[in-house]
């Protein structure tokens, strides 16, 4: 009953797409309007925390290598940390603005994990390409939430953070277990399907 890896990527892509849409909406209307309804303020931090929780089964089930397990557990931890920190800030239990740095930390660690656990070069297969692409988008994109932590009213930083999430979700939706990328598929990757 274990799902194929590409299905897991697509399910996470859906969650991250929804997260990106929420962040875009917040960037468009501004934090004050976004938080006019209490439940809405908790929405994306809770989703981020939930995605972190769901990353644990991925860590347990997909044990291709030790690096895979370490990467997935690092993701799970930083996503839960970032989600929990934002939940704490929204509820008022956390007051120090430095907690906002958990989100850029999450993006940087996630990007590094993507790059480290992908052992193959960019054009080895579609999956390898997607992992490299996601890694660099997240690593470079961490600058947006980092900027937003210091300038919370900047729509450039807030919008940039949202678009990073949307870009990652699009990249994840293109993931396939064994498929060529720009006509390249290393013979060692296996036989293409679908």
């Amino acid at each position: 009953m274990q799902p194929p890896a590409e299905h897991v990527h697509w399910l996470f892509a859906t969650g991250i797409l929804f997260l990106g849409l929420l962040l875009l909406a917040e960037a468009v209307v501004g934090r004050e309007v976004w938080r006019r309804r209490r439940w809405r303020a908790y929405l994306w931090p809770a989703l981020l925390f939930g995605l972190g929780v769901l990353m644990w089964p991925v860590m347990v089930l997909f044990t291709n290598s030790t690096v895979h397990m370490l990467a997935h557990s690092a993701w799970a931890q930083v996503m839960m940390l970032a989600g929990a920190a934002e939940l704490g800030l929204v509820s008022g239990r956390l007051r120090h603005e430095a907690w906002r740095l958990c989100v850029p930390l999450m993006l940087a660690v996630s990007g590094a994990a993507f790059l480290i656990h992908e052992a193959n070069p960019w054009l080895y297969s579609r999956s390898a390409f997607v992992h490299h692409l996601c890694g660099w988008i997240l690593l470079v994109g961490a600058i947006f939430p980092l900027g937003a932590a210091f300038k919370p009213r900047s729509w450039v930083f807030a919008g940039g953070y949202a678009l990073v999430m949307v870009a990652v979700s699009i990249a994840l939706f293109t993931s396939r277990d064994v498929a060529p990328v720009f006509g390249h598929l290393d013979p060692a990757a296996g036989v293409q399907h679908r």
Partner: protein
Amino acid sequence: MTQYATEFLRSHTWSARKAVLLTLGPCSAVAGFAWALFQPWRLTLLHPHGQGFWWLVVEPPLLVILAGVLFHVLVARPLVDDLEDLR
């Protein structure tokens, strides 16, 4: 800037925000629909024989449409109502 010009700019900014909010969800849904048209074999529900459990449950174009519809109904519309109230 005159009071009229300020009011005019504010009104246009609010209208633009509202338009963007009301476009995000449908844009996602249209993207998912276009994907389904371009790659119909991704929708295994259209040809379910011989498909495994996960191939029948996880239909990526439908997931994109679902995300767009849920966002529009649950988030964008109440948010636009709040924008209208503030106006």
